[in-house]
């Protein structure tokens, strides 16, 4: 069970969480939306798996490269 870290590609704030821990996700699914530069930037799953933890809550500030969720493949 490889642990996969999902990262935000941008500085911004968490706009909407779209999945909960335990959810099964597929490559290309969106975990959450980050508001940055007046846009809703998705955090997209690169490889399918199960969401282990969501590390941020709505409204939190996130930095570019920050791990925002953990998945297992």
């Amino acid at each position, binding site marked *: 069970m490889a642990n996969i870290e999902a990262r935000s*590609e*941008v*500085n911004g704030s968490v706009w909407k969480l779209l999945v909960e821990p335990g959810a099964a996700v597929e490559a290309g699914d969106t975990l959450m939306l980050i508001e*940055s*530069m*007046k*846009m*809703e*930037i*998705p955090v997209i799953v690169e490889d399918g798996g199960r969401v282990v933890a969501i590390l941020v809550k709505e409204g939190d500030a996130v930095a570019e490269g920050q791990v925002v969720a953990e998945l297992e493949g």
Partner: protein
Amino acid sequence: MSWEPEANEIAARRRFSEALGGEESVARHHGAGRLTVRERIAALTDAGSFREVGRLTGAATYVDGVLRSVVPAPYVMGLAQIDGRPVAIGGEDFTVRGGTSWGSDRRKGGQGGFVEDLAHEYRIPLVNLIDGSGGSVSSARRRGHTVFPGIHGFEQSAALLGEVPVVCAVTGTAAGGPAGRAILSHWSVMVKDTSQVFAAGPPVVQRSLGQTIAKEDLGGSAVAVDAAGTIDNVAASEADCFQMIRRFLSYMPQNVWELPPSAPCEDPVDRCADELLSIVPRDRRKPYDMRRLMRLVADQGSLFEIQPSFGKAVITAFGRMNGKVVGFIANNPMIYGGAMDVKAARKQTHFVELCDTFHIPIVFLVDVPGFMVGLQAEQAATLREGMRAVYVSLQATVPMLTVVIRKCYGMAGMATCDKNGLDFKIAWPSAEWGSLPIEGGVAAAYRREIAAAPDPKAREQEIEAELRALASPFRTAEAFAVEEIIDPRETRPYLCAFLDAAQGRLAIDRGPKARYGVRP
């Protein structure tokens, strides 16, 4: 009497050079997961095409006047073909003294040397396979004196950048001169995990700064490619690296006096992908997949991205349209809404110059809200680097086509226009433009009016709605301030027609491009 004894001696001497640094040294090199320079050249070039130059060069040992052995010079080079086209190719032989530079009457290559002269004189591309750490302080002992930096200088290396395509592949650990040589290229690539590049390696860093750092952490691809953009692309393996070099050269002319090679196009020019009609969400806050958009427009399978992991707010890629080579520059709304930051600006500047130098027309796929804003962006000199991108696009003379997909704002928007050329701006119906986005501009421009209103918030929204109605691209097209609005599905056939028509102009402009003035 024939010359057979000498012919036999040639064969015997060639065996010394084929043995490289000896079995033990070659085994150690293989053990580190790396190919030898001879294996690299064989893997990269067309089978049987390598014609070596300087095979007998090396340090010979004679006993009583009889040759016993030759330690070959730590550089292998010559003429070869890639996809049937000649190239000058060379690389350090790491198995001989770590590929360090070595005294000879004339250098074979690395910095200057025969291989660079060959590329210059014959006007053929140069491929450098870099695997060495440059000078060594031990040379002072041999010479009896120290030498000025640049004794083997970069004069020819620099001149080549205006003449022929130069590709540098970092295939081992490169420091000093060889690391610098990698940067003096039109395109560079390194191999993940088995190559590193830095101005100076861990021992020097330890001595200078007291920092202890492993060489992969200091100059692996995560630093050199992803974070710094020092090297353009990363390859998963040496085999992948050679495939990428062949791919890069397939878009390049042999020199600046020729045009890039056209290829037969299987993909119908009039292919109008329906998906283009809905790829841009109507909700302006929602981004979309610009790479997918590019694939729907360009000849199928023709895109090759330069610097995919650096300056990700802009996408730069070579591709083909109806078989003709095109440079695509597309903003990526997934990264800061496509705002141009310092890295994206640097990436765009380099790509525009690269296309201009080799007569490759540029297609801008524009969705840029402006320069990146904020304290970090200002500290990083986004304004200066962004204006450099504007300056370079004004200097370029290659034809450019501007397709506004969504946003085109401010000075970053200016950098996407061929203002000194046809200034041909083509818009999708989703396009919007201006000096700055309405949301940001209303509060500043109508401050007094808003403050004086009974309900300031409502007044601000009213003014925004009023201005937005005027922002329809159709109104701009009525005034011929944007030259055409197209159905997104027509993008491919429309662009192909103009790019085909520009080929004659490209042919007229062949030759070196003089660039005057001082870049900001």
